[in-house]
């Protein structure tokens, strides 16, 4: 594993994640030692319910870890206020956005909230960031449309633009391509890859798109019910970790095409 600490943006030590309940904490994953380099494009893969969303939520301090430590820029994440976290990490979530009457421009502008004053006044700088984010995601042409008038793919772009406007070094996206057709999937994933490289941001995507992930990601994080493995796609194919991820009676991994295929009966 890369030990170049100057390049390290996020690191965890013996992190365990899960939920606190009245009786006993429910541990989803434990002993997680994760390292994330700045400027890398990471895909988080794993079965449903294995804890991908929980991990992203914990890393962004939306929920508290059950144990262990998280370091953001070599500083314990507990020392950050929610305001300071918002300057470092932005999120794109799976949850549906409540019906509202906000325009695309207004939604993207919300991304500037960590930077604006108490009443949320946008400065010249803020406007620049908003315009840039909209251009990068190619949504400038419907800036004045209402969010609820857009298609799912367009909405997803708006939410990504909003995360971009937040101008953080880290962006977490939880299944950003769910419910999208293949055209949109590719366009969104390559958009993210593009952003990662051109703006030198670290992006972590929880996704089920194994084949796109293996083609695009700098690094894959594989989540098994009992362990966590990370590495480049090639490494993980070589040591058969990827093959084990979804292996079952029904599917098997084809190393050549980097695809899971349906097993012939």
């Amino acid at each position, binding site marked *: 594993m890369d030990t170049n600490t100057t390049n390290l943006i996020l690191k965890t030590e013996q992190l365990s994640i899960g939920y606190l309940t009245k009786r006993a904490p429910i541990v989803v994953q434990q002993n997680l030692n994760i390292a994330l380099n700045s400027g890398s494009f990471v895909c988080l893969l794993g079965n449903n319910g294995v804890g991908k969303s929980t991990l992203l939520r914990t890393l*962004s301090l*939306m929920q508290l870890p059950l144990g262990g430590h998280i370091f953001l820029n070599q500083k314990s994440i507990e020392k950050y206020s*929610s*305001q*300071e*976290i*918002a*300057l470092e*990490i*932005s*999120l794109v*979530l799976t*949850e549906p*956005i*409540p*019906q*509202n*009457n*906000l*325009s695309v421009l*207004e*939604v993207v502008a*919300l*991304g500037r*909230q*960590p930077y*604006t004053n*108490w*009443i*949320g006044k946008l400065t010249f700088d803020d406007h620049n960031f908003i315009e840039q984010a909209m251009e990068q995601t190619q949504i400038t042409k419907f800036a004045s449309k*209402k969010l*609820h008038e857009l298609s799912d793919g367009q909405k997803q772009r708006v939410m990504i633009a909003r995360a971009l406007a*937040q101008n953080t070094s880290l962006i977490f996206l939880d299944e950003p391509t769910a419910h999208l057709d293949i055209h949109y999937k590719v366009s969104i994933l390559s958009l993210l890859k593009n952003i990662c490289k051109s703006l030198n941001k670290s992006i972590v995507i929880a996704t089920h798109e194994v084949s796109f992930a293996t083609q695009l990601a700098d690094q894959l994080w594989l989540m098994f019910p009992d362990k966590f493995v990370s590495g480049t796609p090639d490494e993980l194919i070589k040591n058969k970790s990827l093959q084990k991820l979804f292996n079952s009676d029904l599917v098997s991994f084809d190393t050549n095409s980097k695809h899971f295929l349906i097993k012939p009966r």
Partner: protein
Amino acid sequence: MALLNLSLGSVSIPFKDIFHSLFGGESSNKTWQYIITDYRLPKTITAILVGSSLSISGLLMQTLFRNPLAGPFVLGISSGASLGVAFLLLSAGLFGSTFSNFASTSYSMVLAASLGAFLILLVVLITAAKVRNTMSILIIGLMFGSFTSAIISVLAYFSNAEQLQQFMFWSFGSVGNLTWFDIGLFLGVEVVGFTMILFIVKPLNSLLLGENYAKSMGVNFKTTRKIALIATSLLTGVVTAFAGPIAFIGLAVPHLTKLIMTTSNHKVLMPAVALMGAILMLISDTIAQLPSSTYTLPINAVTTLFGAPIVIWLLVRKRKILF
């Protein structure tokens, strides 16, 4: 609208006299002057204060709970206030008449309403601190509402006609009969409430994307929720104390405004909703006075009778509820 409200009433007063009464001149009739400056003007101002407070509280609750049915009274505040007043007016039936001597004065009513509202609010806030889910708070508020109505029914059953009547009239709501001192107090609490709300306009906007997105953009959700709940209780508490449980305005005005304004930005919505609430309340009060007739209607009936069809019509036409 305020001028219209001032100039229409049971007693028809020429506009010239209204103008003179308002702007320091001598009206030709002392009685008219009193009616204008000490009855209609406080009433007009109260209507404005009541309308704006309730509407803003309603908007706040609808955004916070992301529920179109939320209103300023979902937290059980009006039930709390009703309970306070019910205890004051009706408990004589149960516990003897020791209370009833000072029961009917307006200040003890205001005090009882505030205490009741505050008590229920406190319980709701304590439960809210323990409950993570915002929707549960909504339901808990509703439960407290039913609970207090049940207690009021029991109290009502054991009280005599006069006490019941007094309670009924209180529950009909009224924007009349406030002294200038009352209005000063009312205004003071409103300024505090509005100032608090001003500070959460920004987080409220990000809350439109949902709790988690708001958090990811640096919103301290718990603090925002606390401020919203306290501001709402202050505003609706003071309204209920001085004007009784005014129905409908808090629920409907935010919807009306959003349908007309087609924006969700709270920086625009807040003042628009306040204005709309004030206007609707003024119209309701003007109708309630049944100009040039000697009769008046209870304000609560008017707000609902004339407001509800408007909302229904707008919704049928536009078909969509947006926050």
